């Protein structure tokens, strides 16, 4: 986890021409969204390369600590993707995510973090097209907002 974040830092520094490329950490559930991402790949759908994927067994495994870690560690945005409601491999793991998410968003708002930086989406294994759209959308949303650069916020 922290390794990925460090990589995000390193990659950002070497970005050519100084143009801003969002670094987004994507937590994808193994059963639906990761398979959906695979489908997007095998179907050769083109989409933004800005989301760095971390595969988790279930979106319910995404402890809000992971999200805060990603943002504090240099990510500009976070995507959480899981199975559609009712489709969870673990019956209701995604409902845990659905419950945590609004409270996490309320918390992030108090920290002054824009809503569009952290997004949750349901992507099934057959939705390669949707996965590509979701990634493009969050990338463009975060690109509009600019870098988050939380290190500089903390050192204020």
């Amino acid at each position: 986890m922290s390794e990925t974040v460090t990589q995000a830092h390193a990659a950002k520094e070497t970005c050519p021409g100084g143009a801003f490329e969002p670094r987004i950490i994507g937590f994808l559930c193994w059963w639906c969204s990761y398979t959906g991402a695979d489908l997007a790949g095998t179907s050769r759908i083109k989409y933004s390369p800005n989301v760095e994927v971390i595969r988790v067994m279930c979106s319910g495994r995404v402890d809000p600590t992971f999200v805060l870690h990603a943002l504090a560690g240099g990510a500009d945005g976070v995507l959480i993707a899981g199975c559609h409601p009712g489709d969870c491999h673990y019956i209701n793991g995604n409902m845990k995510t659905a419950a945590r998410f609004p409270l996490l968003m309320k918390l992030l708002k108090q920290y002054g973090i824009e809503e569009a930086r952290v997004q949750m989406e349901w992507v099934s294994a057959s939705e390669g097209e949707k996965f590509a759209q979701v990634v493009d959308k969050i990338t463009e949303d975060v690109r509009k907002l600019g870098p988050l650069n939380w290190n500089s916020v903390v050192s204020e």
Partner: protein
Amino acid sequence: MESTKEKLKLAFYWAASCGGCEISLLEIGERILKVVEVADLVFCPCLVDTKYKDIEVMPDGALDVTFINGAIRSSENEHVAKLLRKKSKVLISYGSCACDGGIPSLANLFTLKDIKQHAYHETDSTDNPQRVEPRVKHTENGYELVLPELWNTVRKLNDIVRVDYYIPGCAPAAETTWNAIEQLLTGALPPLGNVIGAGKKAVCEECPYTKKDERITEFHRPHLFRADGEQCLLEQGLVCLGAATRSGCGAQCLQCGMPCRGCYGALPDVEDMGAKMISAIGSLVASNDEEEVKAVMGQIEDPAGTLYRFTLANSLLVRRKSDG
């Protein structure tokens, strides 16, 4: 040290704090006499008339044990913390504010500019037609007055200096303080950097209420709801931080029917208290309907102030982004 019968030298400093930590030391009752038998209080701005100069002239390491309470939020706090670190053999972070930022660190949800604007211009009791604000330097009749600078971000003590041991709590409970003092006097101490005096398990271990493994359909605020006095408060819809908070306080708030507010700080393996509580609270809702779950969770007001009431300076994000 025993052979010379020389007393230990103690110091007790307050940074950004309310003074409750000094009072909590007296809460150990007559046991304080045992402390006085073996130790002298050589520096304590709250109780003894000593000056910073008295500390500055001491040789390095002259103080045996120094307790610092309060968060660090000004150049004065920083200066004294660094000075005391140099002069102390053992430096202890005492109380929530020093350990995790405490209540003062809730100021991190605002900027220094917001705070000054509110305190010096907007409160109902303010009468400030010249719009005066405190400045670091002021010259009057050729004399220069220098005041400490207030920081934009409130820090915890170990952001500024190396801390040897931590004693948590707002204020630390008498038993916690005494356990820690006993450990210090007998030398039965854990490795440096550990918490002393408090427990290693969650407050739930000391809580008088029973878990019935039930789910909830709504959240309540403590001042608008009377709990039944038997069942786990979380299961009754009150946001209680006991599940993510370190034990050692004897669950005092819960004994009085109030939910735990988290003053002992995060459990040993919890990195960010608020995030862990969001995780725990998210599993409480009875419904499996997305919209319904969202509506129930939306009832929780002020998550940052509730879930990080004592630990904002020790959270992963630390402070609010100013332009957000």
